[in-house]
């Protein structure tokens, strides 16, 4: 059917067509932005953390008595807990830390070269106080220097050596060798590969680690446990009992794999992307209902006209294509208007959340999805139209 005749047919139902066009444009806009947001969340969840996510467990806990939160009882408790966990079958390595990786925020501070304070300063760097096995548990590759093997108090007379991640070393020392140099926290003993520290920190891969006794555990502490790949679940199930047997005066806040911890880090984005996807699906459903209703009503109202066409020699296929073409044209027009709506919605959403801007191929993909849905929705009314007998034309006479 020629394009101008299709337009003419749509013009006969101005109000209905306009309502359909507005809906399709809005559906297009929401669908497009939902895909953008879902894509962004997926990218965030798939970004490299530099950590063995699946086989590392993190236990967050806190002693419930004051005595156990202070040395020497705390030191004794940590030793007993680490020893007990090492005996669990499937445990490869275990370490304590004042905080785990993959957090929103936590214990952090500035790291700088004392000779170039302003120029070298990295703000809000996560500061870890850990036992020597921390690097083994997280499988952090040593890029330069040697890892400290013994715990030296952070607030002692001799400063505890510092291990920093590569990107932090590059920032503080301007891409020059860092080992042996001094930062405000102590001498740099080693540089390790980057890993994901805290989301709210200046840069997620900046981390500063000191092998030292925990200063205090009033905010709780973490036990990090790497297991063999097939025993993570079993170790996880055994941990609560093992730790309670060591000392029952503890509160275990959670036991998670680092993979779960990473999921939680982006749970808000995941939630919004899920809700928008659900809403997009509902909007598509609503648009399909609209398209169906439009085509069905059109078929019923124009039975005689279709009958005349059939009597004049139009094939069933032609009637079928004609009806689909009308809806395809409406969808295409809706998509064109939808691009404008999507741009506006993208700008509005960008004022409240982080959302990438539109690219060229996403509107095409969205248009294809919309066309597919509309085709499915109008298929049945179009089939009904093909069943109209040419004899129907005689009723008009």
């Amino acid at each position: 059917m020629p394009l101008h005749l299709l337009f003419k047919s749509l013009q006969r139902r101005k109000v209905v067509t306009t309502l359909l066009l507005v809906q399709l444009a809005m559906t297009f806009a929401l669908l497009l932005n939902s895909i953008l947001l879902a894509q962004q969340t997926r990218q965030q969840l798939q970004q490299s953390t530099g950590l063995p996510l699946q086989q590392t467990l993190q236990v967050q806990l806190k002693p419930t008595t004051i005595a156990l939160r202070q040395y020497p009882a705390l030191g004794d408790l940590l030793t007993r807990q680490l020893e007990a966990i090492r005996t669990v079958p499937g445990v490869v390595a275990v370490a304590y830390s004042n905080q785990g990786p993959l957090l929103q925020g936590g214990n952090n501070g500035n790291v700088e070269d004392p000779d170039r304070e302003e120029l070298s300063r990295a703000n809000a760097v996560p500061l870890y106080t850990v036992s020597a096995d921390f690097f083994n548990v997280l499988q952090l590759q040593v890029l330069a220097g040697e890892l400290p093997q013994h715990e030296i108090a952070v607030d002692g007379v001799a400063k505890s050596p510092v291990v920093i991640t590569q990107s932090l070393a590059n920032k503080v020392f301007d891409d020059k060798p860092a080992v042996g140099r001094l930062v405000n926290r102590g001498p740099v003993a080693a540089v390790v590969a980057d890993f994901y520290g805290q989301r709210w920190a200046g840069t997620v891969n900046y981390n500063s680690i000191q092998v030292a006794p925990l200063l205090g555990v009033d905010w709780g502490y973490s036990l990090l446990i790497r297991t063999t790949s097939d025993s993570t679940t079993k170790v996880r199930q055994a941990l609560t009992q093992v730790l309670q047997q060591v000392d029952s005066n503890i509160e275990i806040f959670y036991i998670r794999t680092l993979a779960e911890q990473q999921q939680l880090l982006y749970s808000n984005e995941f939630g919004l992307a899920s809700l928008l996807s659900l809403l997009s699906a509902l909007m598509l459903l609503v648009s399909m209902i609209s398209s169906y209703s439009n085509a069905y009503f059109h078929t019923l109202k124009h039975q005689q006209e279709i009958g005349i066409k059939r009597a004049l020699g139009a094939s069933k296929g032609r009637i079928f294509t004609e009806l689909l073409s009308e809806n395809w044209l409406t969808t295409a027009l809706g998509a064109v208007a939808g691009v404008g709506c999507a741009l506006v919605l993208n700008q509005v959403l960008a004022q409240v959340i982080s959302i990438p801007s539109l690219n060229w191929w996403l509107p095409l993909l969205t248009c294809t999805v919309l066309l597919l849905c509309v085709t499915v929705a109008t298929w049945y009314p179009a089939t009904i139209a093909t069943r109209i007998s040419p004899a129907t034309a005689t009723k008009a006479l």
Partner: protein
Amino acid sequence: MEQLFYYLKVSWFSIKRAPLPYMLTVLILSLGLGVFFSNATFYYRMNSDPLPDKSDKLFFPMLMLVPYQCSDCKPPPVLSYSNVAKLDVSTIPSAKAAMYSADGYLRQHAAQPPTPVTVRITQRDFFSMFDVPLLHGTIWADNQARDELLLSKATAEKILGRTDVVGQQLLLDDRLFTIIGVLDDWQMLPKLYDAYNRQYLNPVEDVYLPLESGYDYNYLSSTNSSTFDDADFRKLATDGRNKALHQLQYWVQLDTPAQQQAYRQFMANLVTDEKAAGRHPSAEANQLVMLRDIVRYFGGESADIKAFAIVTLLFLLVSVFNASHLSLNRYLSNQYEFSLRRALGANRSQLQMQLLVDMGLMSTFTLAGAAVIAYGCTKLMNSLWPANHLFAGWDVQLMLALAVLTLFCSYLVTLYPSLRASFGSLNKQLKE
């Protein structure tokens, strides 16, 4: 009344004649309203004013009294003990209280397993400033350190099994404290006195302890603390009081504009004097933030809820357009019947009345559907954003708003079809 039943009967017959399009119209409108309403609930409750009579009289003063230089920095969101002491000198405020939150373990005796509790460490004016209701007992006589605490009603019931427990003793982190008061049911939502870092989403605390005792017993802030010198977190009683260890929120009550202006001037003078004395190098960046503006000031507004509000509004619009579309098709299908009634003598007002009854019936079905969908959607949002769960409750005001919105949307949906059915050319309509 008889006429109303007649209209209802006609509407019912009309629905029965073509139930699917009618059901689809109701379903689509319910979906739009339900999804919109569930998000609107969170949005409304998160932005509600928990102290409408006082929210413009309570202020959080923040000063740039820190040992580092910064020309364009905002002052720290929490104050040090020494800065609070300097502010506390002023007699301008009608009430003032410093505070922070901490975690602790509560038990009746050493043999009992400990119960984790949240502790608000504060001063006596806290209770009058934030209208905290007292069920039993009293509050501290002054702001001195003392081994006395107040419990929330739920905590008293949970630990001791009853609320009339004034005078009894409890172990808080292995230290013996006497209960001097029990609060009545109280939930300040949003919890604006602790707004930084989205803490306003959390429930109010279980236990209330004097500020000086909190410092003496080294209770660290569970939400936000930072040092700007070599202060040791483990020495709150000494370093916490003397050095730049920031962890305190500070609220003052300034009832009149004159008091507010005087307090601003007091803050400005304080910063100037301190700078002249060489105790801080930074330029003045004082802030005196009103309670109702505190979430916005800290940038803690829920962006996800806001973004979803935009989208659900869009969805509601699409649903209204779609329902209008379906409704129009339905009326066009029934147009012959309307025209026949007009031809047989029914006037336009009678037809309009019929359409109003149609609308009322549709609103009833839609309201029921929207409430069910909103309930499901609220549950879903709670599971995806558990931090917001306290703000999911409905009240009469919200339900009335939903009912009014449903009526309005149903009216919009039936408006054009009804006008077309009542005012179109009778001849033309009868021929179609």
